[in-house]
């Protein structure tokens, strides 16, 4: 076969993927970095204002609130999803009927759309007809009843159980496959050395899957920056911006007032923040491994 035909096939084969990918993933990011320097309403002249949009973002208390809420989401994932999934993975490591059933049950929310998940939990938290307050009533714990989603002080925390609920299954499967990849010799060696129970867990099992835990941490961070649907459905960022995340902040400040330049600047900030978060977590976890 001649090289010219191969070369043509290589180009033809890669072109469609590269084009679609570049046009709808890469170009938008570059564009938003560019538009971020302008004051632009979508129609008419775009006015160059340098770092004006970024200065406004940094002065906006809602931005800081959103960033804080994103950090709360990351922490809820790191200290909620990861430990629960790890414990479950260690306990579900065999494959009998009950274990298979539990695994399927725990993973099930992963295939649901965030819209449905958000709406179900809205009903659970509903102050009058919600099953949570109904349950507290039935148990005689009236004083524990709260305005789960409309009290600005607790709304963001009410959003973390649905978040954890919907993603534990993912981490469970990731950890289970990591545990299965630990070679049998290592378990034998640990047994000969007399390492069992907690001691084995901390000095053998966890170090063996540390790489996977690192991946899980990155997933928690990028997952938290991806949570838009759930919050938009359940609270739309309210009450009074109490549950605003970076993504809802971007959506609300772009599409309610058609400030495309400002919204682009927020988009760019989200990209930078997420790279910063992921970089930091990589640095922290790899340092701990070496130390």
């Amino acid at each position: 076969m001649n090289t010219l035909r191969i070369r043509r096939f290589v180009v033809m084969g890669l072109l469609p993927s590269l084009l679609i990918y570049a046009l709808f993933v890469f170009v938008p990011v570059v564009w938003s970095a560019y538009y971020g320097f302008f004051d632009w309403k979508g129609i008419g002249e775009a006015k160059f204002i340098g770092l004006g949009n970024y200065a406004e973002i940094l002065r906006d208390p809602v931005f800081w609130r959103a960033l804080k809420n994103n950090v709360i989401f990351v922490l809820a994932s790191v200290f909620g999803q990861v430990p629960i999934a790890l414990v479950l993975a260690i306990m579900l490591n065999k494959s009998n009927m009950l274990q298979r059933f539990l695994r399927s049950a725990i993973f099930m929310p992963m295939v649901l759309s965030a819209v449905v998940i958000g709406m179900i939990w809205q009903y659970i938290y509903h102050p009058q007809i919600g099953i949570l307050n109904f349950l507290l009533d039935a148990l005689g714990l009236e004083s524990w009843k709260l305005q789960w989603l409309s009290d600005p002080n607790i709304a963001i925390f009410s959003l973390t159980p649905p978040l954890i609920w919907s993603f534990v299954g993912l981490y469970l499967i990731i950890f289970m496959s990591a545990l299965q990849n630990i070679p049998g010799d290592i378990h034998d060696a640990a047994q000969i050395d007399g390492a069992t129970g907690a001691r084995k867990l901390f000095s053998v099992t966890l170090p063996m899957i540390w790489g996977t835990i690192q991946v899980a941490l990155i997933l928690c961070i990028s997952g938290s920056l991806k949570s838009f649907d759930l919050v938009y459905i359940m609270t739309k960022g309210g009450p009074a911006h109490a549950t605003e995340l970076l993504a809802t902040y971007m959506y609300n400040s772009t599409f309610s007032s058609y400030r495309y330049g400002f919204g682009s600047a927020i988009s760019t900030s989200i990209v930078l923040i997420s790279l910063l978060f992921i970089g930091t977590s990589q640095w922290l976890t790899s340092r701990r491994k070496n130390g």
Partner: protein
Amino acid sequence: MNQSALQARQAPSHKTGISVKKWRGAILWTFLTIYGLLTLYPLFWLFISAFKTNAEFMNRPFALPEAWQLENFTRAWASSKMGTAFLNSVIVSVVSLALTLFIAALASYVLARFKFRFKGWIMTFFVVGMLIPIHSTLVPLFILMKQISLLNTYWALILPYTAFALPTAIFVLTAYLSSVPKEIEEAAYIDGTGLWGVFLRIMLPISLPALATVSILSFLHSWNDFSFALVFISKTSLKTLPLSIATFADGYQTDYGLTLAAMTISVIPTIAMYLMFQEQVMKGMTAGAVKG
């Protein structure tokens, strides 16, 4: 005598050892089962509540419905134009899936089998894109769609869904094809089959298992997506299921049976798919998450 006394003393303690272990196991399993049931409860609650009347929904939230209101479903289907939304979701998901599979398989064949300049760069280009949070592209994509007048068309959803599915698809498929021995295609080349022929008649069928993984992942993403639909689609006749359910819930807020029936209809396809291809769904979604 002495020894038998020792044995007698040891025996019971050995026995308690076993029963402590047994108890611990039992507690563990009870805990696990409760956890599993709690996990399933919100879904179970959705299904039973979808069959209830409003009065029952409010007064007996935990009980099974007294009379199963099937008409909640027929009313939901008719009054919210769910048929249209369902069709829109099917069109958008299926077209973007077909597009993703074809162009990703083609690119993967090239990346797995041919040597050429910039190959490393192209791989890196796809990896870098996977670090980009999807929502940060909403605003610029909206501007782009507006400028090329794709807003309120199926393409406004199909193209971004495909674009965001590509990196994972290409990684899964390239890894799979690299592990397949080259003998079969080499025999085909010798028989005079062209590159396209080998791709269509040999590589595509060979990569079926990997294509299945990619299909599940990409289908679930586009079927469940809300944010792109929210931003790019405002015409009622083009709304996909998640978007139209969210709008529907706003409109019929106090008709609970109706809203819950609509939600149930929208989750049935994904849950059915999950129950049928469980292992593959788990594998696919994990691969997608870890790589993406």
